[in-house]
């Protein structure tokens, strides 16, 4: 599964540490999601979507 997290983070000018703080996870978690090494659970994906004001499928793409 691929995601647009890095791109969205860049658009908002947020650091990984800031995003991690907002999501209440570690920076390593954000990094692992961004680099595709870890697919978040549904609750975390919802938190991400809410934070960026988007739908989950606009951030994550299961086809890739």
């Amino acid at each position, binding site marked *: 599964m691929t995601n647009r997290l890095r791109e969205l983070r860049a658009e908002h000018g*947020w650091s990984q540490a800031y995003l991690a703080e907002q999501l209440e996870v570690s920076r390593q978690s954000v990094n692992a999601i961004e680099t595709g090494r870890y697919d*978040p659970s549904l609750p975390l994906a919802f938190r991400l979507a809410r934070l960026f004001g988007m739908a989950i499928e606009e951030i994550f793409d299961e086809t890739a």
Partner: protein
Amino acid sequence: MFCKGSSVAYKRYQRDVLWFMSAYVVVLVCASWFVRHDGAEHFYLYFWSVLPAIPILAVILRMARYLREEKDEYQRLVTMRSILVGTAALLAALVVNDFLRAFAGAHALPAFSTFFVFCAGMGVAQFVQWLRNRGSDDEPAA
């Protein structure tokens, strides 16, 4: 566990494990002394032999509690993976040693080595994870 941004749950876990391991060292030294000097009676021999295992069992239980308390799902996964690697290392060592003892007359693994093998396996897994995290430690956003 090679983790810069440790969670509150992990810090508590680390603190407790440090206490248990300190208790282990103290109990082990006391047990060794008592067995050497007061080991004639069967009851005390059993008592002092089992006592050092208690802090080790406490560490294992604390590990389980940490997994329950950890809110960061990625960190939880990383810890579970390392526990799995530790368990696999321990099982592999025991199985190989079993066959060596059965067919080649080899000696059993040295005393106190089982938990060491488990921790070594966990340590290696965490080190590899730390290297992987470090490799992709790119921060720039814009």
